Structures are given as C-alpha cells and as structure tokens.
C-alpha cells in the first residue's frame, strides 16, 4: 500500500469493514446496492444488525443456497435473499413509513458526488438521453436517521467525488453524515468536511489534494 500509487488506502472489503465497525449492536440498517452490500459481511462478532430492504422485508439474511431461493424473496437490487428468524414482511407503504418516519437507524449508499454541505447526488448524471430512475434513494436520505456514503474517493477518471457543490442532480439536500472512501473516513459537519481517520499509510495532504472542497483536520 502506498500513499502515492493507484492502490493507496483500503480495499473495498476494508472500507466495508471499517464502516461496519461504526454500527452499534441492534441497529436497523438499509444497505444500498453495490459496495454498501459488502458491509453486511464484516459486522464484528457479538453484534446483531437487522437489515431492512425497502421492498418489504425486515430481517433480511444472506443469499440462499443454490436452488433454494424463491424469485419472490428478493432485495431492493432484485437479487434473491433469505429471511432470518424474527423477520417480518410488509407492504410498500409500511416499508417507506419505516424510512420516512425515522425508524431506520442507518442507511449506507453509494455516491456520484457528496458536497461539503451534506448534499448528495447519486441517481442521475443529468444527461439528456439518460433514462431517469430514482428508486427509493430520495426517501432514504430524507428519512433515515444517519446516512453514510461508501465510495471510491475519486471517479475512474480521477475527478473528486467530494466537492464544494454537487453539479449532478441532487438526491437530497444536506443529508449525508459521513463518507467512507479508500483513503479516509470523513464527517460532514456544519463547518464542512472534517477528517475522522486516515487509511493506513495515507497522508492528510494526499486526501486533501483529491478532495474538491476544504477538508478540516480532526
């Protein structure tokens, strides 16, 4: 691991493990599709989280064994899952009552851009020929108690994802509490981005250079 090469900082698994450390026992958690899903694999021993999937299940478990699945038992990413003992099924209005009503403790999402005022853009590039599709992201960020982003620090072309103001269409305004990247854990505070922790071997200046908004030290 190097502070200057392409491979600086945490792997995806390590990012997910680092995030999982911050989730208290007994939390009700909604994990977005993609990197966020990895978080479930790294919950520390002795803690139980209860997973909510917005398509109507609380107590979601891992993927089923081969040929043991039910095409009508799926997660929000439309992949087959299982239901753990103590699970409950409910309809969509009840599911989003949980979200909008502030009953979910944490949701973890991917991001295209996070601004230092907590704005999130993660649903559309705003390109004119894109098929707009928003799903439940706007409801999640508006209703869940804490919203964490887990994402690569920059895009594949090296553009910072942590920015002064989002240029892509917003998912929500002032909704993000914390960001986990391969380089660092960063809080969104009333003063803007503030470093919480650097990945091993990563230096503050290195993160700062790749962040398109002021980054406060701890």
């Amino acid at each position, binding site marked *: 691991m190097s502070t200057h090469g392409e491979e600086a900082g945490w792997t995806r698994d390590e990012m997910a493990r680092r995030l999982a450390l911050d989730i208290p026992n*007994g939390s009700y958690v909604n994990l977005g599709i993609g990197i966020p899903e990895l978080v479930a694999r790294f919950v520390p021993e002795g803690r139980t989280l209860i997973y909510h999937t917005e398509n109507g299940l609380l107590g979601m478990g891992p993927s089923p064994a081969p040929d043991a699945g039910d095409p009508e038992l799926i997660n929000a990413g439309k992949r087959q899952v299982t239901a*753990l*003992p103590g699970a409950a099924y409910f309809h969509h209005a009840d599911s989003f009552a949980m979200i*909008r*009503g*502030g009953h*979910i403790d944490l949701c973890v999402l991917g991001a295209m851009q996070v601004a230092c005022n907590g704005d999130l853009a993660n649903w559309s590039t705003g390109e004119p020929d894109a098929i707009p599709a928003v799903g439940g992201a706007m409801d999640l960020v508006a209703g869940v108690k804490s919203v964490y982003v887990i994402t690569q620090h920059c895009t594949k072309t090296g553009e910072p994802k942590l920015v002064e103001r989002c240029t892509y269409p917003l998912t929500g305004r002032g909704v993000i509490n914390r960001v986990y990247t391969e380089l660092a854990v960063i809080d969104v505070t009333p003063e803007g981005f503030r470093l919480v922790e650097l990945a091993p071997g990563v230096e503050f200046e290195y993160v700062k250079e790749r962040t398109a908004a002021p980054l406060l030290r701890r």
Partner: protein
Amino acid sequence: MIDKRVQDPTRAVADIHDGATVMIGGFGEAGSPIELIHALIDHGARGLTVISNNTGSGEVGLAALLKAQRVAKVVCSFPRTANSTVFPELYRQGKVELELVPQGTLAERIRAGGAGVPAFYTPAAVGTPLAEGKESRLFDGKEYLLERWLRADFALIKGRRADRFGNVVYNKTARNFGPIMAMAAGVTIVQVNTVVEPGGIDPESVVTPGIFVDRVVEVATPLHESELVAAGATYP
C-alpha cells in the same frame, strides 16, 4: 444479541417523565394495556398528555390514571362511555383539558406521525365545529381540512404475542390503535400474554414489525377492565 424484553411493567415505564406525551392503546377495554397503566400510576409521572380513543371506565386503568390527576390533557375521540364518570367530572371541574378529534382523523394523525408525514388533508369534520380554526382547501372541487401528525414520547400498548426482537401480533379487535401508536412514539412499550423466540411468529403474519417496538413485557394473564369495573375495583 437483540433482546427487548423488560422484566416487569414497573421497569418498563420507569423513565416516563413528568409532562410526557403518552399514547395509550385500546378501544374501550379491548387492547387497553391495564398493567402498564397501573405501573404508570405507581411510577407517579404527572402533567401527562394522553392520546387515547377513550377515557376509561370505572376507576381502574385509564380512568384510574385520570382519577389520580396525572393527566393534564386528553386527545381523544370519545371521552364518554358506559361507566365513565371520572373524566366527565374532572372535565367539568376544569382539571383536564380535552382535544376532541374525530376517530378516523385521530387514527390517521397517529399513522402520519409514524410514517413521517407532517400533515395531510381529510374530508372528515368539514363544516362542523371541529373544523374551527383549521385550514381548509379544495382539491378537485371538494373541501378538505389540513391535519397535523401526532407523535408521542411513549406508547403503551397491548399485544397477544411478541418475540424478543419486538415483533407483535394482537388479539382480535384489541389490535385497534396498537400498530399505529407503536409507529408514532419515541419509546414503544408493549405488554403481551406470551413472549416467544424469534421465528415463533410467522413473518407473513407479523402485524407490528420489531422496528417499531422498544420494550416487551410479558403479562401472562392480564386483568379485564370490565370485570374489575363490575366488581367495583379501584386502583391503586
């Protein structure tokens, strides 16, 4: 390990503070969490705002809480029932405030509180004295009233069975306000006849998912309000 069980009603209500807003389940005696209410009387919190469909009967349960003058305000749809003398007396003496709400509006305001909907429109009570002071608005040529959500610090409700995650099923028409009050309170306390292990309730049949429940207390053989009233019982 998640375990929402609490040993007894006394411990379950121990942090209800003076001035708290408390939703209390039940329609008449069906679903009235009488042991939790009695524990609340013993606990002694005062100046409560109680949100409940009725005001109790005789001098037990909700009526006993009122009689003990722990309640500053009642939000309810029908504060008058057979054998209900405590509330009318206190009300006439000006010792308790009343916010009268049509029953469906009461239910929907509570559900809205739980669902994160701060306000909604309803046709109920348009043109009646209960519309006074309320905003109204036309949608598609019909008049509706704007109603605000109701939320509470605590909810006391009664189920039939729960697991230690807080999943609850109810008994018949004792379900009534339980599921929506569970959604609308900061701390939801449920008394049930039986606590089972997770998996002991079919996930297709769960009525209140555990996410809405904070504390589960087993009261194996709850008292029946009507029997107590018939016997002339009082509490404490």
